């Protein structure tokens, strides 16, 4: 149906160029004002629920009891407590992204090599588990890896571990890694499209072993995709709040937990300090993205 539409449109363009453009122009110009009006509700909602809160946070991060200035930021960077939150957030985000990506790389590369039935099934399952996050995920991990979790007991009986504390930094890294895997697979699986099978064969013909192939061809080709995925995983982990909140009832010292505590906790409410901490969190994400862009430019430059 659309093919016949296209044909008639083309016909009109070639046979009646002047008439067609003239008749198209007037309703289009009139329509433009109407069209702008249609954008209004969207703009209104977007400003109210996205732009305005962010602006409030940005402006109020510069405001404190002493007036305008950088007092909030100075307070955060002078406090061991807040610095620890930043450090923990970065450490957990970094290690969980690295581990999650390593598993996702191995997984999605192997996914490409197995028969389509198994592949489709595991891909579909992985996509579904990407929605298994937040509070339900934390709950599932308590059952599995809590102090009396089934897996903890099993591993203890096998003598593989002495004990496992899910509520520690290591525990959180394991938990975060789990929710990074489906996202990593989702993002990396298409990236392997860039690696053509015949390159591998050509390299082998020229005498390259598996290691040489990955060192000189595979990894350089995949680098932009790997960097991009890593950045998204980092941002994903930095902003995560629900999982750790449920797991430790807000007792583990992470940036999102501190931010939420400063606006909705029972002890010390300080929305301006929360704003400053929030700006640091957003700033860290922006910095990561910036570094990513720079690295991407460099790797493109090299490949040319």
């Amino acid at each position, binding site marked *: 149906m*659309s093919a016949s*539409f296209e044909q008639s*449109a083309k016909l*009109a363009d070639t046979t009646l160029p002047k008439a067609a453009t003239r008749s198209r122009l007037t*309703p289009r110009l009139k329509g433009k004002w109407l*069209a702008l009006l*249609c*954008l209004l*509700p*969207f703009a209104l*909602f*977007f400003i*109210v*629920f*996205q732009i*305005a*809160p*962010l602006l*409030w*946070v940005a402006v109020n991060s510069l405001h404190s009891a002493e007036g305008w200035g950088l007092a909030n930021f100075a307070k955060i960077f002078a406090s061991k407590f807040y610095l620890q939150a930043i450090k923990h957030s970065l450490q957990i985000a970094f290690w969980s992204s690295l581990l999650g990506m390593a*598993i996702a790389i191995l997984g999605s590369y*192997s996914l490409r090599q*197995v028969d389509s039935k*198994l592949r489709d099934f*595991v891909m579909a*399952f*992985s996509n*579904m*588990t990407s*929605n*298994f996050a*937040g509070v*339900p*995920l934390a*709950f*599932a991990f*308590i*059952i*599995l890896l809590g102090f*009396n979790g*089934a897996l903890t007991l099993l591993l203890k009986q096998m003598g593989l571990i002495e004990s496992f504390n899910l509520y520690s930094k290591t525990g959180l890294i394991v938990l975060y890694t789990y929710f990074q*895997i489906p996202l990593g*697979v989702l993002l990396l699986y298409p990236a392997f499209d860039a690696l053509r099978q015949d390159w591998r064969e050509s390299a082998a013909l020229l005498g390259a072993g598996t290691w040489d192939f990955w060192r000189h061809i595979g990894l350089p080709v995949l680098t932009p995709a790997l960097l991009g995925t890593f950045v998204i995983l980092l*941002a994903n982990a930095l*902003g*995560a*709040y*629900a999982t750790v*909140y*449920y797991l430790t009832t807000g007792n583990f010292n992470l940036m*999102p937990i501190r*931010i*939420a505590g400063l*606006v*909705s906790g029972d002890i010390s409410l300080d*929305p301006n300090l929360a704003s400053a901490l*929030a700006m640091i*969190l*957003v700033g860290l*994400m922006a910095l990561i993205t910036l570094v990513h862009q720079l690295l991407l430019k460099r790797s493109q430059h090299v490949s040319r």
Partner: protein
Amino acid sequence: MSLANRAPAALYHRMVVWLLFLILLLPLAGTLLYSLSTSWSASILPDGLTFKWYLALWSDARFLNAFGQSLLVCFGALLLAVLLILPLLFVVHYHFPKLDALMNILILLPFAVPPVVSSVGLLQLYGSGPLAMTGTPWILLGCYFTIALPFMYRAITNNLQAINLPDLMDAAHLLGASSLQAALLVVLPNLRKGLMVSLFLSFSFLFGEFVFANMLVGTRYETLQVYLNNMRNSSGHFNSALVISYFFFVLIFTWAAGRLNKDKA
């Protein structure tokens, strides 16, 4: 590569894929087993199996209430998102294609700004004053719209580019349709599938949203996730049944989206 060389490689890849599946399955399988067991503590396997936790859950008035409220908020937010995003997409792609570049930057905001950060501003701005909405489900509708926005915008944009919007509109105009008629009767039916897929997937992640629901509204309009959080001190078996019931719904919606997507290809 010789055949003898290939067999171990194939076996290796199968093993890796099954291992990946196992890792992803483990927390779910554990929760499922826990929800079906009579009691399970300090042993590797449960003592016995039962359905009583599901019966208890699905006859609990507070759970049913939270479940209904979750559905209501999600469907409401998706309806709002469709009403706001469809005209936007149409106008951007038909009248102002240059705006698409700006939109692609704007829709990064909900990704780049974690809900915890937005909540700080939202709590202060709408806690009182003319737009006082914290503590009511209305604020969730708006917030969930921003969460669904990047996703729906990208999915439907891909669909719009595939149907060649300007040609389709010009053809409809030539045949005497007004712009509104053309948009509703010609373009919209062509977008149905992309729209449905993005709605199903958006639902499955909005249904699991916790941060906004807990920080902005809390117990005053309890959604499923907030209910699960507030029940943290009740029986673990009961909570497992809750988690599995929740995930079952998500499963249905992601599965439906996957089916629709496959039909399209």
